[in-house]
């Protein structure tokens, strides 16, 4: 496109020559957007690469646009994104589930381990003493450090722009804390007449450290429990710089409305770092020792207790036994007495019985003996020996004589049992034929012969006496008018 009348054009040509056409072409390129685009298109990638290598401003500049574009694109066609992301999401989800599971296991392990260690009892005691939960005390003790809170504070007013805290942190109203943190800095800066550009960088109290990073518009404060690692201040510095870069306009426009800083939460949350102590896995010897000694002490006390009981029991038993023994002894004594008595009674009765028996026996013997004696006496007194007329001869082997001898011996024996001695009177008789003298002599002879025959037959001589029945003074019962001998038994 050319400008001006043909004359002027000609004049310009004369003045600028060929360069004029080139200038016109260049001008046309800027004015016609399609041509301009075409020329930018030639260099845009190179330009982006070049700027990207120089600083981060490109990412900061593009981020909102890209974010918006992505959001819109996902809203318009979610399926396409799902399809694209599918190969990435699957493994990512699996990985995160695995990690969650293994973390849960590790936590369980630690809980089990801690619940048995001596340390854990100390923690329990501390928790009880300080009124905190056991979980918190345990966590605090196993931590090397933990960033408990992060404050984003408006530098000028001390107003709180954003605040994040770890789950276990105890925090007063962060808006007031934010104000006090600012007031403290003001107080120190004012009190010690330091260089105006100097700022308070750390506060520390016991286990707590507050790290402060001052930017032109905001202060980033980090409350750390434990030993602050070297890289933490760097993280704080980077985060502060990042926030200042991203929120510069918001800071300038700040009038108390904190909504503009809601999105800083993610950046602050990235600062909530913590590191746990590497707890060595070893058997809980101390806990076991304590447990064992407790059990030992308990069993010793129990043992002693039972021992005492047993002793008491034994003593009681002994006492009982003693009583029993004395009782037994007494009983035994009594028994001996009784048995002695019984014995004496028995012996007494035995003796009596024996005596009685003897007496009875004697009586019986006497009775039987008396019976035998009387029987034998009858037999003897009943027996006769028939002599021939006028004669006085006695046949020694006459059965009647033998029988008589035997009976007499029996009588002597029986009479002996009664302590007596029998005497048998043998009276000789003669019949009336003959003279008195002859008859008397004959009777005498007959008795003497019989006596001799009996003695010879074994009858003791002292037991038999012979005489004539015809002799004067003799009982009439013995005088018989016959040629015989009669007998009469007398016991002395």
């Amino acid at each position, binding site marked *: 496109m050319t400008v001006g009348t043909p004359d002027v054009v000609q004049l310009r040509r004369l003045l600028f020559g060929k360069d004029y056409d080139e200038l016109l072409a260049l001008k046309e390129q800027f004015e016609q957007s399609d041509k301009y685009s075409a020329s930018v298109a030639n260099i845009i990638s190179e330009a982006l690469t070049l700027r990207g290598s120089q600083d981060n401003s490109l990412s900061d500049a593009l981020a909102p646009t890209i974010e918006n574009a992505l959001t819109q694109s996902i809203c318009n066609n979610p399926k396409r994104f799902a399809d694209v992301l599918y190969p990435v999401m699957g493994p990512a989800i699996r990985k995160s589930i695995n990690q969650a599971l293994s973390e849960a296991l590790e936590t369980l392990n630690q809980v089990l381990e801690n619940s048995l260690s001596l340390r854990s009892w100390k923690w329990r005691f501390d928790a009880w003493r300080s009124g905190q939960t056991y979980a918190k005390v345990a966590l605090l003790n196993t931590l090397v450090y933990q960033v408990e809170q992060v404050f984003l504070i*408006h*530098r*000028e*007013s*001390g*107003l*709180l722009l954003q605040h994040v805290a770890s789950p276990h942190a105890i925090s007063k*109203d962060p*808006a*007031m804390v934010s*104000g*006090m943190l600012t*007031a403290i800095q*003001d*107080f120190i*800066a*004012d009190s010690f007449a330091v260089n105006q550009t100097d700022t308070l960088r750390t506060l520390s109290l016991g286990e707590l450290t507050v790290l402060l990073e001052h930017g032109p518009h905001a202060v980033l404060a980090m409350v750390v429990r434990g030993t602050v690692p070297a890289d933490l201040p760097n993280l704080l510095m980077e985060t502060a710089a990042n926030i200042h870069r991203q929120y510069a306009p918001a800071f300038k426009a700040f*009038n*108390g*409305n*904190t*909504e503009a800083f809601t999105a800083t939460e993610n950046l602050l949350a990235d600062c909530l770092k913590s590191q746990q102590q590497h707890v060595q896995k070893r058997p809980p010897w101390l806990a076991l020792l304590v447990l064992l000694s407790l059990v030992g002490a308990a069993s010793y006390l129990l043992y002693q207790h039972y021992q005492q009981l047993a002793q008491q029991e034994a003593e009681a038993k002994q006492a009982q036994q003693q009583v029993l023994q004395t009782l037994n002894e007494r009983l035994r004594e009594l028994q001996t007495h009784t048995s002695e008595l019984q014995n004496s009674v028995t012996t007494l009765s035995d003796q009596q019985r024996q005596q009685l028996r003897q007496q009875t026996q004697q009586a019986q013997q006497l009775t039987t003996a008396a019976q035998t004696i009387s029987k034998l006496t009858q037999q003897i007194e009943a027996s006769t020996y028939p002599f021939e007329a006028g004669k006085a001869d006695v046949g020694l082997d006459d059965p009647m004589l033998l029988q008589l001898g035997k009976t007499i011996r029996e009588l002597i024996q029986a009479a002996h049992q009664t302590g007596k001695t029998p005497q048998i009177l043998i009276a000789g008789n003669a019949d009336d034929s003959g003279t008195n003298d002859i008859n008397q002599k004959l009777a005498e002879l007959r008795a003497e012969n019989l006596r001799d025959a009996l003695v010879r037959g074994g009858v003791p001589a002292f037991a038999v006496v012979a005489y004539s029945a015809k002799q004067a003074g003799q009982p009439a019962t013995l005088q018989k008018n016959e040629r015989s001998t009669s007998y009469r038994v007398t016991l002395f």
Partner: protein
Amino acid sequence: MIQKKICLLGSFSVGKTSLISRYVNSLFSEKYLTTVGVKIDKKQLTHDGNELSLIIWDIAGEDDFTNIRTAYLRGMAGYIIVIDGTRQNSYDVALSIHEMVKQHVGELPMVFALNKADLKPHWQVDGQHIRPLEQFGYPVLETSAKLDNGVADIFLALIKQWGSNHD
């Protein structure tokens, strides 16, 4: 949510801490515990349908106004100067402080509080003192932290100024 930093200024023992304690915690104590340095409280309220959070800085009163640490005043959205009606001196201190703040921080919404209104028979501050205050163009209100009279009003008077002039 809108947050605002405000400061309570004034001579010692005029009742700054008592007014805040009454406003924030509804408490009052006859006991005087002087404030050392600064103490910060927070009061949340809704004003004109907006959530508002007042961060109230209770600054120790000192009679030599130059001793008030100007650093504490940085970033405040307004302030309340408290005068003890029973003490003429606290009125003079109030005027000095007002001047000092204007110099160091500039014109800001503010309120004058004439405290201990329950002791009015003993007041040393009267109409002749009050009129010059009113001429500054800021609200001048009587309060009693003890009886809870006009306490919320001084804070409200400050809040209203943000609604009209500033923001």
